[in-house]
């Protein structure tokens, strides 16, 4: 009997979460985006170290200081995006880091033989050939390589992070069989998935995480889908952020049949003074839609109209001219010049307008930066302070200021409050509401449903690159949105598709 229990008292990602996996059982782990599932897996795999709490494997306390330690203890985590070395064979990929060698020499033939034997043992010898090169593999085959790699050595626990997201139905079926085999062999399995039917099909028990804490662990046979959704969402934040109704004016942004590699046939309208929430799971195509709107991702089809005129938007520069601004998802990677000053960062999009004969008028530049520092209450020692010295919330306000300075007609906010403390969050909400009052058309993308509910007049739900539903803000609930995003039978909404 192997018994794992873990407890942490991390900052926010994970709070006193305890989890127990028994040998020979499949434990499903569910929760919204950001509920702490990935953090938990990373601690399990030794990639992160917990701040508090202990981890026991087969009754012994384990301290993992690196992924190697976790590996040695028999723990494997298979992540969503398999890491496969493109230029070597499947066999070498499987044995990477543990190539069978004799006297320091390794034989290509022996590796391939070993790999073939292992593949045959688990019934995958038809699905994949040991001599294929990594780059020629399909997503499903990559997943297989990752799984085979995990099975080398003594294995006690395997965690799968959304393993079926890149698999076809047939391949997923294969995977379930394999997982069944592993369970039969006494391996403890943690199965992270957003897909309800899968969980009900294969799991023995299910643990629901919410806001970094374990809500409940239940026997799958004794629960229903509705109950699980309720557990995943089940918080009442309506008292904290009151939704403000806005007064929508004329249509400012109209999108017709927008199609890219990741987004299919998206059409919608946003009125002036209206806030549209864009909900959906990570990978549903929300950010891709935003980037397509500003011309950062090539468009295959579709038209974009601003104030009734079609605009040719082939790059983000065109979008700025057309009056569309995007506050991107990752402020450090996509927005901030960390070493440059607050002033520099705020004025980046309007430098040309502040210039006479291309010479930037530093007086007006400073005045502009100062006005935004005041208006958005950005806490900084001066406008010359490098943004790296600011807190996350104030950095986010700097990014917001950058996109407000060209006075756009349409503002897209992608995860506007990620990694921001509650106070700054409320301030950012206030700004959004104020902008809407001034007649701006606003699109908010967020994985935090309370945020969507607090801001939106209408909510568009995306799934697999399509807009699948439109819900009026006052009718939307977390339950209904989660259900729509996860392709689960809707509770109280009209479906558009």
């Amino acid at each position, binding site marked *: 009997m192997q018994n794992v229990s873990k407890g942490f008292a991390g900052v926010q990602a994970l709070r006193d979460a305890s989890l127990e996996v028994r040998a020979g059982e499949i434990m499903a782990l569910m929760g919204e985006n950001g509920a702490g599932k990935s953090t938990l897996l990373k601690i399990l795999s030794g990639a992160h170290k917990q701040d508090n709490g202990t981890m026991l494997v087969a009754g012994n306390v384990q301290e993992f200081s690196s992924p190697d330690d976790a590996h040695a203890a028999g723990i494997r985590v298979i992540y969503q995006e398999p890491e496969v070395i493109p230029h070597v064979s499947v066999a070498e990929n499987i044995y990477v880091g543990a190539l069978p060698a004799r006297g320091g020499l390794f034989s290509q033939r022996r590796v391939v033989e070993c790999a073939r034997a292992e593949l045959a043992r688990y019934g995958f010898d038809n699905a994949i050939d040991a001599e294929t090169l990594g780059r020629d593999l399909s997503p499903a085959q990559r997943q297989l390589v990752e799984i085979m790699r995990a099975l080398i050595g003594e294995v006690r626990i395997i965690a799968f992070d959304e393993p079926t997201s890149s698999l076809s139905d047939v391949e997923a079926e294969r995977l379930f069989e394999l997982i069944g085999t592993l369970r039969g062999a006494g391996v403890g399995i943690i199965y992270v998935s957003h897909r309800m039917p899968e969980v009900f099909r294969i799991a023995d028990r299910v643990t629901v995480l919410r806001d970094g804490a374990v809500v409940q662990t239940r026997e799958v046979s004794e629960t229903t889908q509705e109950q699980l959704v309720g557990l995943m969402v089940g918080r009442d934040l309506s008292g904290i952020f009151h939704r403000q109704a806005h007064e929508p004016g004329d249509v400012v942004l109209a999108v017709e049949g927008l199609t890219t590699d990741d987004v299919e046939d998206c059409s919608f309208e946003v009125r002036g003074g209206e806030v549209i929430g864009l909900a959906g799971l990570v990978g549903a195509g929300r950010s891709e839609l935003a980037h397509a709107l500003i011309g950062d991702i090539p468009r295959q089809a579709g038209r974009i109209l601003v104030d009734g005129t079609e605009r040719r938007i082939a790059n*983000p520069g065109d979008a700025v001219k057309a009056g569309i601004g995007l506050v991107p998802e990752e402020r450090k990677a996509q927005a901030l*010049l960390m070493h440059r000053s607050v002033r*520099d960062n705020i004025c980046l999009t309007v430098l040309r307008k502040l210039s006479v004969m291309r*010479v930037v008028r530093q007086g007006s530049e400073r005045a502009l930066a100062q006005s935004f520092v005041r208006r958005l209450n950005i806490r900084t020692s001066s406008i010359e302070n490098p943004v790296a010295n600011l807190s996350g919330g104030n950095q986010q306000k700097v990014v917001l200021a950058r996109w407000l300075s060209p006075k756009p007609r349409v503002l897209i906010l992608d995860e506007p409050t990620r990694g921001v403390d509650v106070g700054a969050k409320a301030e950012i909400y206030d700004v959004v509401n104020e902008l809407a009052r001034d007649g701006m058309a606003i699109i908010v993308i967020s994985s935090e449903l309370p945020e969507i509910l607090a801001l939106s007049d209408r909510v568009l739900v995306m799934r697999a690159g399509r807009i699948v539903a439109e819900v009026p803000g006052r009718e939307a609930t977390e339950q209904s949105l989660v259900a729509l995003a996860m392709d689960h039978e809707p509770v109280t909404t009209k479906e558009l598709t």
Partner: protein
Amino acid sequence: MSSQVHIKRDTEGRQETPSSYAGVSRSWLRTALNAIGVQNLSLLFALALLVIVIGSQNPNFFLVSNLRTIGTAISIVGILAVMQTIIMLLGGLDISVGSAAGLTSVVSAMVFMTNQNAGVSILVALGVGVAAGLFNGLVIVYGRVNAVIATLATYAGFRGLANLISNGRAQGYTGTDPIYVFIARGSLFGVPVLIWILVCVAIFVHCLLRYTDIGRNIYAIGGNATAARLAGINLNRYIVVCYALMGLVAAIAGIMLTARTGSGQPTSGSQGLELQAITAAALGGVAMQGGKGTIAGTVIAVVVLGVLQNGLTILNVNSFWQDIAQGLLLVAAVIVQQRRRGVRAVGLP
């Protein structure tokens, strides 16, 4: 987590205090120090040390004629280093500048021999330089070729072309033409024209970077290319134009080379200029990752390198040692830079 900590340390290390915010109460010394910057200060300190050591060994170092020698010697590498600074701020690198200078030197002399018109020969050489730079930029942007590889290829290509059209020999004679003579040996207000060219290029580029939206966008591109792109900056145009300008400056260097030697030189005099220019920029504090660096730093570093080279020569140090010293200096400069960034990675970057 750890990267955040490093970033913080870095910015604390060299926080530039705002001139407008400094307030009146601050002493002029402090203001002066802030204007110069920590990195530049250590360079100036190194320069002072070099001058003292070399001067105490050989007092001839301080002769006006020797100072003029240093000045004219650094003028060619100086303009290349200044322009290389822009390229490196963008996050690129141009290894082909020495070869491009050699090519344009030969072109200027050969065109001059056909019509004896210095103006025409200079214009043609400048045109060839721009074309060479443009070629680099287009290959990098539209061929999606890494800048080091692309310019390494043209480093060989331009040199080959120069040798091909000149048969590998010095071309023509410009030593009697008044314009070329003026460039090579003329003076304005007692300062050699060659130095004036460096001063003009440096001031122009400095103002471009410091006071125009173009310069600020260049810093933005090097600092965070994704952010710059999303802010609507046309990265491709900036990169192509900057490489073309690099070619233009390489052509100016080539013309200065022709004037100084009195003939078109396919390789002699231009060989190794790229190494010196990159070393100077790195030593002057331009980050190899882009986004950080100043013209002031580069110019001081050019002077430091010039003094070092001159010192080693007048102290009769074997010239092969000078190459070794220069190589070591480049590595040392980048190591210092990486330390300041707080990079502690093990293994490959």
